[in-house]
């Protein structure tokens, strides 16, 4: 399929509140279960190995009017918490048999249990992803947490997770992450050939389809991109940081690019490229997944590893992508991102990298002020 049509088609599917592509999968696989997961990361390999479809949730985007969830979550709470609950209260999540949450922030944690009360028929679970990677006990604990998840998935109608099925799933997802890394490498190298919003759509599409199909989509796209012409623009090279959970409107990403930025790296939908390297396909795949979370994960504001601080990770990312600046794109009321901003900013100032902070909400329609801010920032760098 022509690349432009792929982007347009997936742009539309990502905004679809009815999860039509997931409904279609379920219709083709009678009796099979669908498990959603709230950002940022979930071990999708385990869900796949149980014969289920893992679906990454990304909030309600800009097409959902909140009628009920505001009253349940009140002021000062980010949008994705409310739109996720709203989708449930408005029956948009009927296609799901279960939803997983993890220890990313306090609001998401409480949402898990609010969902549990409001949707008693839905399997709702909470994974504790460890915050003390320096302890030798954390891999064992996470492996036991994953084994508990396997039991739960088997209980709600998943097929038995065998070593082989999990090893196969790990290999498929390793390949998926390699393809995403290739896509990002291409973008960093030739940002005029692949725009950030296009790459974003391609990667996020994986949230809504089986990994095998996503691999095929990425392979086909990479092939076509190798032939795609592109005209370099007069833009500065920018790393985006802070949009790891709630996702900015697509129009905002486009606007930043149009205002004179090449987005050479970012943390959009970062759960899809969570590991810096392949998860070993070895004899104990549960252990391999747990050990990879502890020792092989990308830096993220929702993962705490003082052995390799996140601010050092950002500095390295800036260096690797030869970026001129960092754009903090932070969802309104996202406390992990706000906290990390302070230490990220401190580090960037130490190494002399300019930065700009922009707040967004998934449902946002006016961008005039943001456009002016980005344009001014770009000009200040170009004419400095």
């Amino acid at each position, binding site marked *: 399929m022509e690349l432009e049509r792929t982007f347009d088609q997936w742009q539309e599917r990502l905004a679809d509140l009815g999860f039509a592509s997931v409904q279609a999968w379920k219709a083709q696989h009678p009796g099979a279960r669908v498990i959603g997961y709230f950002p940022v990361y979930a071990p999708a390999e385990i869900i796949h190995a149980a014969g289920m479809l893992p679906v990454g949730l990304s909030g309600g985007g800009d097409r959902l009017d909140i009628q009920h969830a505001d009253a349940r979550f009140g002021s000062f709470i980010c949008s994705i918490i409310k739109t996720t609950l709203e989708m449930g209260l408005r029956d948009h999540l009927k296609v799901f048999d279960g939803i997983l949450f993890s220890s990313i922030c306090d609001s998401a944690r409480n949402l898990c249990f609010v969902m549990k009360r409001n949707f008693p028929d839905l399997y709702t679970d909470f994974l504790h992803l460890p915050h003390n990677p320096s302890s030798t006990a954390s891999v064992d604990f996470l492996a036991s947490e994953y084994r*508990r998840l396997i039991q739960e998935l088997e209980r709600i109608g998943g097929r038995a997770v065998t070593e082989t099925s999990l090893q196969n799933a790990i290999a498929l997802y390793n390949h998926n992450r390699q393809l995403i890394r290739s896509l990002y490498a291409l973008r960093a190298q030739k940002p005029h050939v692949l725009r950030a919003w296009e790459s974003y759509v391609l990667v996020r599409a994986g949230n809504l389809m089986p990994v095998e199909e996503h691999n095929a989509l990425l392979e086909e796209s990479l092939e076509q991109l190798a032939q795609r012409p592109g005209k370099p623009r007069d833009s500065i090279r920018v790393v985006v940081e802070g949009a790891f959970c709630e996702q900015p409107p697509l129009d905002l990403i486009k606007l930043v690019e149009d205002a004179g930025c090449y987005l050479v790296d970012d943390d959009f939908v970062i759960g899809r490229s969570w590991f810096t390297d392949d998860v070993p396909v070895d004899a104990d795949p549960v252990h391999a997944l747990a050990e990879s979370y502890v020792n092989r994960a990308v830096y993220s504001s929702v993962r705490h590893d003082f052995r390799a601080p996140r601010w050092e990770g950002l500095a390295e990312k800036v260096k690797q992508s030869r970026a001129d600046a960092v754009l903090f794109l932070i969802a309104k009321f996202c406390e992990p991102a706000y906290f990390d*901003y302070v230490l990220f900013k401190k580090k960037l100032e130490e190494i002399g990298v300019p930065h700009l902070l922009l707040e967004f909400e998934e449902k946002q329609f006016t961008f005039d002020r943001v456009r002016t801010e980005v344009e001014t920032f770009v000009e200040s760098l170009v004419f400095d």
Partner: protein
Amino acid sequence: MPEVKQTEYRGSIHQRQKELMLKWYERLNEAAETGTPPTASLMISGNCVELLEAFGAVPIYPEVNALQLAIRHQSLEPILAAEEIGYAPDNCAYVKADIGCYLKGITPTGGKLPKPDLVLCNFVGCNTYVKWFEHTAVLTGSKLYVLDVPFLCEDEPTQAAIDYVVRQLKELVTLLENITGKKFDYDRFTEAVRCSAEVEELWSQIKHLARRSPSPFDAYFDAITLMGPLYVYRATQEGVEFFRAALEEMWAKVASGQGVYDQEKFRLVIEGPPPYPYFRTFRDMFAKWKACAVASTYSTVGGLWEFGARHDPDHPFESVALHMLSQNVTNRNYLQRYEQIKRYIEEWNADGLIIHFVKSCRLFSAGQGDMRDYVTKTLGVPTLYIESDLEDPRYFAEAQTRNRIDAFFETLEHSKLTAKAV
């Protein structure tokens, strides 16, 4: 409209708690000046202070420092200082006050606070804790240890979770041996655990006295007064003696039929931390209606003991782990909090629930609208939902809060009268 009446609890334990807290700050000052005793920063909720006690190390509680500042109307200056270096208006104001104090050299008593020998983050549910202590470690250059406590998804912790915490506690012993240069004293640790168990028993008995009518104390505002010694002295004999005296004093009140007011008109459960910058003003809004809190979730941040859990000197490591995992309100899941409130309403015989949403604390506040839906619709109990902050004075709308509280009690009074008439 009833007359405004200012209230403050003035028993001898009130004076004693002030002395104890001052003594604690003096020890911290001594540590700052001489380097001994060793100190460790840690969080109030679900902590393992017994392990520090075994090494003679003194805890530094940044939360206590922050609330002390707020109650003395001194929190805004450090909050603004933190915002100047990049903290957002929507970051937890406890953190901002603490960081701002560090930047500006402000302390609650004017004495010195030591650079902690260890920044010990007991991560129990509150994600802000981890960020906060990472920042503290970066700013002070102190060693950081994050003791990761798995969140309680089900009613009880799994054996894997208990093993995980125990293994980390044992790693911490080695770390503390290195930091303090002292060998781990197992007997002293067991004794600290025994003291905690005794304090918990006494504190639980005090809380159960609030089931009587009138309640001899306010289980929100007065409980907060008792919480300082509870956190700092839990694992010590001084703590045991303080709470023994407190229980005796409360029993004396019960014996003489003395309540918080001359007449106890309303019995409440209160959910959420208080607005410390307007603590007195807020309390008086309830005093005006002779409304007494008989139970509160905030007073279980340090530990949830009124339902029977205790530290156990026969299994010291395991019981410290269990305390961290399941016996404090912050590491328990949200639906367990609903159940806790339900028990308070039923067993402490309350007329209504006050929900205080604090913008700083999403752990407490995210989802309180759903909690209200449950308490109002499923339990059929009147609720009042108000919003402000626990540390930042800019978010307290006094007139609006007062109006809402007045309206709530007017309605409650009316429904009590009509119920009587029927």
